[in-house]
Each structure stands twice: as C-alpha cells, then as structure tokens.
C-alpha cells in the first residue's frame, strides 16, 4: 500500500513537471525561426549518424576533384542546394534561417569530419524531420558524388567561384528586378528614393 502511494505520488510529480515544462515551452508558441539548443543539436547529430548504415559510411568517392567535376558540382549546387545552404555552404539564407533545425555551416568540422560515404548517403536519402530532402533517384549517383567533392571544397571556395554560382542561382521576377535595379544604380542611374535606408529582403 505504501509503495503504491509512493508510486502514485511520483507519477503525479512527473506529470506535473511535464505539464509545467510543456506550458513553459508552448507559452510563446513553437516557431521554426528559433535556434535549436546545444543538447538538441548534439542529439540530432547522433541520431543522424545512427540512421546512416555503417556500410554507407564506409563508401569511398569514386570520383576525383578535377576542375570539371568541381565545376559541374558547383553549378548543380548553385541551382539546387544554395537556396537553403547558400553558395558558400554557410546556411545563411532566408530559407535556411527559417528552418528548424537550420542547415549546418558545411565549412565547419561538424560537416567536414563526416566520411564521403556519409555525405553521399545524406544527399541521396535526405535527413528525416529536417528540410533536407532525398535527392536519390533524380539523377545519376555521380551527381551526388560530385556534390560530395564540392562540399569538401567549400572551405576553400573563392570569390570568382561564388560570382559564377550567383549567375546560376534560381531567381524569381522580384529578385531579377532588384538585381537589375542594383546594377542600374551602379551603372550611374538615379538612385532610388530610399537611398541608403536599409530595405528588407
């Protein structure tokens, strides 16, 4: 009887703490614009690692980082990946900042220390419960292996490569108009009325 009361009391305390935690959590709403805590990031990274088959992690890139392969990957990345990851792989894009979890800065050790096979598997299969889709089955495996080469190259990405990529980034009518306005301004056209006042993008 005493044990039952203790168990019941413990359950009530646990439920109460859970309810309090949930109320605190949900008080201001759950926004995707928030930044995951270090604990979440740690657990998510390990969960992703565990979700990748060990045989996939051991795969070796069959392609070499030739200028041709890197250029193919660079333009592919600019067209398909940069909208979230950014041309430089930083993840500092409007889409990237609005995701939960955010795309990682792929130039840092957290990504660079992954094996080629692990990166390939992520490109092909995506990452569940994140914004990273599975790209496998929509092209040859070589495309994904080339992207692995490019991810390895990201920490050394040069200004000329970034400028080339900007020409291949998908753009809507508003983006193109804004780009044209900016070039017109730099070409000497009359400045817009808002001048230096920062305008949101």
């Amino acid at each position, binding site marked *: 009887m005493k044990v039952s009361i203790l168990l019941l009391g413990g359950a009530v305390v646990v439920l109460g703490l859970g309810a309090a935690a949930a109320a605190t*959590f949900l008080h201001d709403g759950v926004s995707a614009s*928030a930044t*995951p805590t270090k604990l979440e990031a740690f657990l998510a990274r390990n969960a992703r690692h565990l979700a990748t088959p060990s045989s996939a992690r051991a795969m070796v890139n069959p392609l070499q980082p030739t200028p041709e392969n890197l250029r193919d990957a660079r333009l592919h990345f600019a067209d398909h990946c940069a909208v979230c990851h950014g041309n430089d792989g930083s993840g*500092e894009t409007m889409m990237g900042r609005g995701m939960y979890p955010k795309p990682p800065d792929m130039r840092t050790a957290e990504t660079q220390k992954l094996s080629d096979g692990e990166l390939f598997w992520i490109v092909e299969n995506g990452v569940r419960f994140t914004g990273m889709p599975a790209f496998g089955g929509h092209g040859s495996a070589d495309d994904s292996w080339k992207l692995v080469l490019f991810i390895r190259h990201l920490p050394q990405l040069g200004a000329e490569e970034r*400028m080339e990529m900007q020409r291949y980034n998908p753009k809507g009518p508003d983006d193109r108009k804004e780009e044209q306005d*900016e070039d017109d301004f*730099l070409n*000497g056209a009359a*400045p817009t009325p808002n001048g230096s006042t920062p305008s*949101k993008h």
Partner: protein
Amino acid sequence: MGIRSTLLGVALLLLGASAFAHGDKVHVRGTITNVTDTSVTVKGPDGKAVEVKLGKATVYTLHVPPATDQPAKASDLAVGDNVVIHATPEGNTLEADDVKFSVPAKSAPGKVPNS
C-alpha cells in the same frame, strides 16, 4: 537497434524546443562617405548615413559598367564609390555579406582593384 531507436525518438521529441530568432537580410544602397578596415558608411540621396560592419566572410565585387563583375577586396573600397550591400542585422549593427561597388565615371579611369 533498440538503443538506436530510443536515441532517435528522444532526439526527435526534443527537436521542438525553441530559443531565439534571427533577423532578415537588408540591402543598403548609396555612396561611400567613410571606409575603415572594419566598416563602411553609406549615404543615400535622402541624406541618411548607415554604417555597415565588414567581416572576414564579406565578399567584394567591383562592378564595371555596363555588366562586368570582378572579384575585389575591402581595400579597393574608396570614398565616393557607389555601393550596394547585402547585410545581416546582428543586434543594433549590420554585418555585410556581399559588397558590390562601382567607381563613379569621372574617377573611373586609372582605378583598378588591388590584386
């Protein structure tokens, strides 16, 4: 397999937590009135001056009319240049991601980016 599933489940449950939000990108356009190693001040026709911080990751592009873009460096920026900056707000400051600038026609001859 059981441990993997448990860890995956716990991780996904925790992915609902929240912390703080980031700001939006902003665009700054105008004429450079001051430039240092760490910042550039831009003044528009409305007379408002905006200071933007320059960082290690800032990318510089020299625009040569009508449509040529060349890689450049922070040291290529000069007072009087026309500039378009894409920046990220960090607290009360703006940090430049991309700085694209051109040299006004009257002073363009002879100016080339340092290489």
